[in-house]
């Protein structure tokens, strides 16, 4: 085994292969920075290019690229609050506030160190686990996968901050959203409204970008500034070292979150979109003095980044040992294995052991390369945050739209980014937690599948399986701890709570809860004529949503009026009220007007795209927003729009061969569609 590891190291240390790996790393970093693009796009692009390479070089290129997208996805998350891939959403929560407080460099230092440590840890675990990989994976049956789903869902309790009812309500909504589409059991089309788009379930990328990126962009548009400028000027190596030291101090947290990331990464179906949240929840639960989480605590960044990079090693476990990809990018990698004549499975652990170890080394080296490049270049990256808001917001918004569109290449993706953007903004402003929605959305469909399989194959005896029992006990502990704490608090403050109870008050939050309840009720009515097997899980989620939603509504309506300080403490994980507590010198009316205008522009942009074609409409919208909304000079706005349009065209049309969706103008003049293929 050591021999194989050693000869694999020699194999990979070949200068040509190292150069190829470096190329992959640079491309991976670039893709990770662009919101919505990531390893999947890169693999689709690169796999054909590896036809004529030998296998270790091919894997050096592919894995070098795929494993570092989660290193650089952190950069836009910190600078703009826009996650570069779905795995960086949890990083936004603390990374962006850090940048706003002038600690972007510290966040970078801590984040890259955590990424590096996590990535190496994941690779190490994979390397060490090779002899026991197969029995390990065989031990995880459908019942165990179901237990892991429940564990993930239990994190909702932690991630809801001190608003557990809202969190549970939102999580149930997420579960319901995950049930949209063709039902696996009976093929019933649930809540698809006769669209092909919803048939395949809501894609994750546009939803994540909508929920987490659009609200930050809207706030930037309201504030008219991105990150506090003065602080960025002081972005020096020294403060970056502070971040590195922060990370080194939190080595225990890094180890725990890396282990969590690597283990969960090995479970097929639990992807990067939830792993970062689970690690974040774990940090919240186990660390001391967590009041600062969500307001720029460096440990939040460290937890999310280390788990997210350790995941890659875990992802490779089932792929190599059994040919079962743990995620979409691994499915692509699998096709590359086949292309190079390797059938993943037992042979990879015996006959092709050197290839397997060369993969482990590639993973390690590429993380080191990626982290070093990012550490050296962060000063450069940070300059992006100095770009004027009038150029930054339209440009980033356009990138987010196209990144979301890459999700399933339909108009639906564009609507989803805009719709979930508005939803996310309202939730953020009102202090509703957004992570539970993502957890419900990702884990819901998986939960339903394995629930039916487990029930069919094992029944209640599933509970007697040791892994299931341990994981479920862990989930119970995760749920019960905050619930018990809350109960104690309520009992202690009984008298206080009863005060001021009387006439219901109609706040925005009450209205929002009522609106969501109406949607849930409508969904339940629509589900009435589904066959029972198709209806049982969505209806259970729907009734739970009704229960928690009504609870939320009543608490909100009858709660004692609280001081802003109390509110801030209560919301915990969320949320800075930009519109209601504007920066100095801006009145609230102006803040609200700007927020409304932002979403009006978003709607106008979507309409323009539908009418004139996605790319032409997008370019025109960038021009108009930059010029009319932000008052940029027409020539500057034109240059921005033209530059972006050209870059998008080269990238998405020429390089990725994206099929552009049909627009109204192409229906009217079919010759235009046939001639340009853009509309």
């Amino acid at each position: 085994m050591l021999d194989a590891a050693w000869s694999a190291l020699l194999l990979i240390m070949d200068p040509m292969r190292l150069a190829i790996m470096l190329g992959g790393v640079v491309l991976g970093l670039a893709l990770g920075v662009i919101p919505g693009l990531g390893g999947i796009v890169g693999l689709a692009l690169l796999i054909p290019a590896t036809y004529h390479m030998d296998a270790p070089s091919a894997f050096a290129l592919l894995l070098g690229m795929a494993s570092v997208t989660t290193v650089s996805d952190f950069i836009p998350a910190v600078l703009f609050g826009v996650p570069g891939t779905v795995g960086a959403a949890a990083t936004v929560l603390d990374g962006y506030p850090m940048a706003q407080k002038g600690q972007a460099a510290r966040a970078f230092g801590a984040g890259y160190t955590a990424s590096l440590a996590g990535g190496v840890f994941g690779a190490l675990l994979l390397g060490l686990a090779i002899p026991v990989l197969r029995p390990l994976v065989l031990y995880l049956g459908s019942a165990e996968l179901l237990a892991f789903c429940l564990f993930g869902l239990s994190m909702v309790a932690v991630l809801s901050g001190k608003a557990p009812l809202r969190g549970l309500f939102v999580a149930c909504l997420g579960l319901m959203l995950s049930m949209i589409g063709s039902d696996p059991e009976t093929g019933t089309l649930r809540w698809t409204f006769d669209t092909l788009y919803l048939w395949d379930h809501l894609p994750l990328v546009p939803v994540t970008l909508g929920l987490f990126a659009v609200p930050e962009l809207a706030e930037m548009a309201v504030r008219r500034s991105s990150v506090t400028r003065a602080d960025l000027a002081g972005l020096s190596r020294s403060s970056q070292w502070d971040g590195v030291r922060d990370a080194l101090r939190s080595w225990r947290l890094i180890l725990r979150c890396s282990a969590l990331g690597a283990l969960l990464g090995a479970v097929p179906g639990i992807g990067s979109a939830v792993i970062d949240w689970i690690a974040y929840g774990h940090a919240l639960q186990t660390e001391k003095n967590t009041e600062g989480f969500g307001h720029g605590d460096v440990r939040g960044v460290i937890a999310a980044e280390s788990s997210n990079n350790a995941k890659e090693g875990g992802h490779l476990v089932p792929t190599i040992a059994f040919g079962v990809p743990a995620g979409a990018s691994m499915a692509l990698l699998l096709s590359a294995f086949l292309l190079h004549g390797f059938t993943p499975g037992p042979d990879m652990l015996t006959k092709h052991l050197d290839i397997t170890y060369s993969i482990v080394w590639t993973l390690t080296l590429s993380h080191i390369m990626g982290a070093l490049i990012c550490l050296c270049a962060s000063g450069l990256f940070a300059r992006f945050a100095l770009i004027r808001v009038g150029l930054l917001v339209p440009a980033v918004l356009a990138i987010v739209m196209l990144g979301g569109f890459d999700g399933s290449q339909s108009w639906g993706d564009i609507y989803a980014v805009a719709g979930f953007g508005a939803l996310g903004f309202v939730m953020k402003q009102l202090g509703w937690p957004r992570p539970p929605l993502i957890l419900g959305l990702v884990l819901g469909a998986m939960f339903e599948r394995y629930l039916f399989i487990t029930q069919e194959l094992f029944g209640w005896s599933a509970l007697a399986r040791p892994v299931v029992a341990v994981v479920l006990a862990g989930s119970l502990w995760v749920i019960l701890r905050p619930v018990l704490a809350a109960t104690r608090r309520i009992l202690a403050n009984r008298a206080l709570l009863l005060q001021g109870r009387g006439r219901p008050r109609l706040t925005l939050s009450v209205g929002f809860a009522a609106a969501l309840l109406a949607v849930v009720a409508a969904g339940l009515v629509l589900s009435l004529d589904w066959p029972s097997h198709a209806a049982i899980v969505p209806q259970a989620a729907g009734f739970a949503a009704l229960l928690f939603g009504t609870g939320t509504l009543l608490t909100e309506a009858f709660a004692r009026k609280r001081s802003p300080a109390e509110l801030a403490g209560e919301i915990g994980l969320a949320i800075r009220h930009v519109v209601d507590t504007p920066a100095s010198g801006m009145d609230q009316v102006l803040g609200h007007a700007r927020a409304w205008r932002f979403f009006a522009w978003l709607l106008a942009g979507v309409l323009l795209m539908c009418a004139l074609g996605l790319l032409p409409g997008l370019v025109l919208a960038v021009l108009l927003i930059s010029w009319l909304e932000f008052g940029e000079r027409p020539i500057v706005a034109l240059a921005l729009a033209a530059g972006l349009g050209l870059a998008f065209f080269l990238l998405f049309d020429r390089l990725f061969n994206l099929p552009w969706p049909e627009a109204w103008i192409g229906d009217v003049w079919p010759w235009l569609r046939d001639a340009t293929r853009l509309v």
Partner: protein
Amino acid sequence: MTAKRLLASAALALGLAATAAKADPVSDFYAGKNLTIVIGYSVGGGYDLYARLLARFMGPNMAGAPTMIPQNMPGAGSLKSAMYLAQVAPKDGTVVATFGRSIVLEPLFSGAKFDPRKFSWLGSITKDSSLCVSWAASPIKTWDDLMTKGARMGGQAAGSDPDVYAQILKTLFGSNLKLVTGYPGNNEMALALERGELDGFCGLSWSSLQSRHRDWITDHKINILVKASAGGDDEIQAPQMIDKLTDPQKKAALGLILSTQAMARPYAAPPGVSAERLAALRAAFRKTIDSPEFRAEADKLGLDVAPVSGEEVEKRLAEIYAQPPEVVALAKQAVGQ
């Protein structure tokens, strides 16, 4: 350079010169253009692998040597790409699409609004056979076991191949197998087999068994319980599903479903492509598939090649759509829709 290759290239140069001199309108049209292959699935699957292989080799074989562009358009189990081909794609012969083999039955079964008979069919790269397999350690070892012993067979979703063939066994053959559905894909079911969670699963195509799990055959890890195809697969040692039926109506219904196995990797241009351009597309399609480079590369990837002509696909579709409504209804019921 050997004399033979020299001769060949000279012939090629002459040929090129001849085409240029003739100023063939089809060549003129395609010269310098892109020919897009729309793939109804995401990158990495079997349909994608075949399409990208075709795209690598077809350009030079086509009149005017257009640039081949593979373009993925996944959605609704490839129904999205079929609808795109029927309704949106330009009809000038610059777009070709590939989609799931059973998509051509959707208009009959689910009322999807397109007519596959109107497509300009290039043909199929190969035929295929669908298998029911069981793990060697399972008590289910033969067709009779599958019928009577309550086998736990895996499924993915209503309408997917494993579910469809398991449903057929239940409805047309009265098997008492237990369909455990919900697995995300073939890989997960393979793992469940190895764990002993399932006895087996249906709908495993012979081609993916060859390319993905060759050790299953060589190391005798599985039993092939039955094969279901439109014929021409004598190398597979298993009973043919349709031979086990006697009732003519049931036979016709199963035949309807199985005839799509004869167009396992189908390629079509939109309806209304001009006859000359369709002829050029068909010729290039066939020439590419028959070329030694294509065969060698397909062999390396473990992809079966047994081309089916566009004319034959048209014939099969005409037969399918000529079936009486009661046969269609029985087929629809058999697949559980």
